[in-house]
Structures are given as C-alpha cells and as structure tokens.
C-alpha cells in the first residue's frame, strides 16, 4: 500500500501495483544494483593514484584505442551497409527476400562463441575468404573489426527499417513534382526522416561493440599492445588475482556505457518525436 500511496501520480482502480513494482524493484536491486555497486566500492579501495595507474597504463591505453577504434569503424560500416540493407528490404522485391530479412537477426540469436570460431576459420590465411585477401585478417586488429561488424549488423537495419516503412510516399511524389530527382529527394526528404533512427542504430551497434568479448577473442589473436581488447584485459587481470585493477578498468567501461545509454535514450526520444511529427 505504501508504494502506491507515495509513488502513484494518478489513482488507479487496477490492483497489483504494489506487488508488481515491489517485486520488480527488489529483483533489479538484488541482481543489478547491489552487484554493480560492488564494482564501485571495490574501486574505492584504491587510492586515486593507483586508480589512474591501473586505468591508464600503456597496455590499457592500447586496448582502449583498439576497442574504441574498431567499434567506431564497425558501427560506421554497419550504419552505411545497414541503411542499404534496410532500404533494399523495404523498397525492392527480389528472390529470397523474406529469408534474408529473417536472417538479418542471426547475430542476435547466434551465440558469440560460435560466431567467433566461424569468422576466425573463414578469415584465416587458409580460410574461404582469407586465402583470397592480400593481407592478414584473423589474429590482427582487422579481425577484431570483422567480428564487431558481425555482432552489430542487425542494430541499424532493425532501427531504420520500420521508419523507412512509415515514410509517407506522398512526400516523395511532391518532391518529384517540384522537380527533385531521386538523389535530391533522398538527401533532402528521406534521409532527414530516417536520420534519428540511423543514429540510434549506430549508437546501439557502437555500445554493443565496446563490450563484446565472445566473438572477438577467437579472431583477435590477443597480442598485448596490438590486438587485445579491453574486456579481455579485465579477464586477464582477474586471472592474475588483480581484482582491484580489473575492477578499475571495468568502472571506466561502465561509466562510458552509462553515458552511451543516456545518449541512446535521448536519440530514441528524438526519433519518436520525429516519427510522430511526420
């Protein structure tokens, strides 16, 4: 009764608010909030200098550069190719389209370890694709990028697709009547409509890529300073029983995730407003 009296903005005749909210909050607290706070408490056992040393040593900095760089480039390709895939799926008809549409979600459904070993095999020097390439992919930073492209692939497609389906075709007809060719219509009419969704998809793919572990560690080769991602570094420190050091890096990553989460929420609100307005 207490919850409903203090929190409810409007009286409701429906029952179950206290039970449902009480359970949901308890569940989230025990599973997420308390364990997450443990990470912050653990970090407080370090002095500021120790924290800075743990999170900015050359090996850690190299892992940030790789993780952020590869994630950014992967999200970029996903934004461009994802927009093309969404466009093709919404606007054109071609054989196998429905199967391809369904398969776009594969990276969501396929366990990351499976994706990791499959990509490593394909892009290795004697692999299906790797043997035709003039440069090495597996066991290099390029491999990290390939894995991150794979796991981020559905995000842009799935955020842009519904918006593209909803674009009012009369706007395009109006643009054509006013003398705009397709390219101008795309740039000036369609692109502004899908842009918020595109940015949301990009941010989601980027956020996912930053934390990705399973698909990357097989293909990366994991050489310190060269192809070692930050999540792996956390595990390495844990295995050396350097709990505080591992947690310090984790806290840096967590803070970045929180910021990204806020950005994504703002983008989604913007996208909804845009979509409602058109």
């Amino acid at each position, binding site marked *: 009764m207490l919850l409903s009296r203090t929190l409810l*903005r409007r009286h*409701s*005749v*429906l*029952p*179950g*608010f206290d*039970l*449902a*909210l009480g*359970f*949901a909050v308890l*569940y*989230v607290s025990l599973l*997420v*909030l308390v*364990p997450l706070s*443990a*990470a912050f408490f*653990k970090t407080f056992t370090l002095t500021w200098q120790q924290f800075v040393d743990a999170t900015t040593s050359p090996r850690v900095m190299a892992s940030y550069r790789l993780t952020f760089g590869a994630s950014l480039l992967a999200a970029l390709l996903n934004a461009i*190719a994802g927009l*093309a895939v969404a466009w*093709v799926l919404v606007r*054109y008809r071609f054989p196998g389209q429905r199967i*391809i549409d*369904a*398969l*776009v979600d*594969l*990276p*969501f*459904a*396929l*366990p*990351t*370890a*499976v*994706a990791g*070993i*499959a*990509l490593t095999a*394909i892009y290795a020097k004697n692999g*299906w*694709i790797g043997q035709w390439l003039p440069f090495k992919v597996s066991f290099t930073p390029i491999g990290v990028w390939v894995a991150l492209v*794979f796991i981020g*692939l559905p995000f842009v497609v799935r955020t842009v697709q519904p918006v593209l389906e909803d674009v009012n075709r009369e706007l395009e*007809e109006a643009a*054509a*009547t006013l003398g705009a060719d*397709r390219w101008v219509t795309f740039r000036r009419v369609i692109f502004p409509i899908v842009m918020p969704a595109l940015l949301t998809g990009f941010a989601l793919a980027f956020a*996912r890529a930053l*934390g990705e*572990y399973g698909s990357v560690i097989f293909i990366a080769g994991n050489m310190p300073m060269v192809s070692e991602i930050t*999540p*792996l570094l*956390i*595990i390495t420190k*844990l295995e050396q029983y350097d709990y505080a050091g591992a947690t310090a890096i*984790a806290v840096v*990553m967590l803070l970045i995730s929180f910021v990204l989460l806020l950005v994504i929420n703002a983008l989604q609100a913007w996208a909804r407003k845009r979509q409602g307005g058109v």
Partner: protein
Amino acid sequence: MNGRRKPTEEPAWVRRLLIGFALVFLTFFLFIPLATVFVEAFKKGVEVYWAAIVEPDALAAVKLTLIAAVISVPLNLVFGIAAAWCIAKFDFRGKNVLLTLIDLPFSVSPVIAGLIYVLVFGLQGWFGEWLRDNDLKVIFAVPGIVLATVFVTFPFVARELIPLMQAQGIEQEEAARVLGAGGWQIFWRVTLPNVKWALLYGVILCNARAMGEFGAVSVVSGHIRGQTNTMPLHIEILYNEYQFAAAFAVASLLALLALVTLVLKYAVEQRVKASMKVQHEH
C-alpha cells in the same frame, strides 16, 4: 511501363547496385559464417561429428546449458510480467529510472556482468568468507553461472511486453474491474491473452541468449570440464585444443538453435504485428 520509370523510383542500375551491395555485405558477414559452422562440423565425417556430441563432457555441457536456461528464463518471465504490469498500466514517479535499469544489461559488457558477481560472491568478495565457512560455492560453480545468465537475459521479456501493453492501454482491464473481476482474474483472462504472442517472443529471445551466453559465464565458471562448462565454454576449450571438427560440431547445435529461434521469432512476429493492428483498429 514502356521502359519509363516512375519519378518516385530509382533507375534500374541504382536498384541493382544497391541490392548487389547489400547482398555482398550480408554474404561476407552473415551467410558465409553461418554456412561455415555446418561445413566445418561435418568436414571429418558424420562419425566424428556424432562422437563429439555424445562425448561425456559435451553432454555435461549440454545439460548445464539447459539447467541455466530452465532456471533463468522462468525467473525473467515473472520479472518481465511484473515490470511490464506496473510500467505499462500505472503512472508513477521513477518510472523512467526503472526503465533505464531494465535496459542496463544491454549496454554493460558481459565480462563486467560476470566480474560484479565475482566481487560479491568470490573468495575475496563481500560474502566470500561466509560462503566458504558454510561450504557453499557460487563462483566457479553452477549458481554463479545461473546468476550471470539471469543478469544478461533479464531485459528480454520486459522489453517485448512493455511497448505492447502500453499501446493496449487499460480500458479492458478497467472494464473487467468494474464488472467485478479480481486482480488475478483480470490478469489471466484479459491481460495475458492480449499479450501472449509478445510474451512468447520475449521468452524465445531470452532463451536463445541464455543458452548462448559466453562472456559473463566465462568469468564465473572456472572452466571445470564436465562440471562447470556450458556449451559455449566447451566450444572454446575444444577450439583451443585444435579439435576444430569437434568444436564446430558442438557449435552446430547452437547454430541450429539460433536458426530455430529465428524461425519461431519470424512466426511470432507476424502474430504480434497482427495483434498490434487489431489494437490499433479498436
């Protein structure tokens, strides 16, 4: 159309170019990886494939994966319903905070998800000594694996239910209430039938992730063969021992699960769309 295109359509060469680009991209990053799993799994013949799957450690891994899913999916189902009920049917202070918290596991690295449980239940952790004194094991044991799995999968059901239940509003429930129905009666007779497809959809996604989780489980498992290895961890061990055919054989089971998930997802998606439409027309 006598070769003349409508002004709202792209020229044929643009269309072909775009379709070509999309297909090449998907082929390199999606279709070939999927096909590889099955090709590599059967490379050394059906016997090797079969042997890799019925081997005791593999079976133990399958069993543990099923245990983790069987515990975490129902827990997250109940949570998803509770969270969706209060978020979609009531207007309360702090709703956005709860919504953000539900999204959190999507943006936290799985490695960090595992790490935080080590900090709470590990030997050096908050409850470490107490657990050791009472001869209980969470980290490097099954309970830790279940906890990590619950963490990474808990948004799925809630995320599917909330938008649908928000769109459906509360008129039907209110009508039931006025007609004298009790809380559980309203839930079972009115709300649940309205959201059953979205619920199933959420459960399918939740299950797929629960069975395939790697990073979080890897941190808390300890990798004890036959005891704390789930299927994805078993694949890793086989792969690192250069038993590629065996690794891909076990992987093919998970790839099959992913394909089944996609088929079910596609079927259920159509139903959800249909129920959204019905809701729209009312």
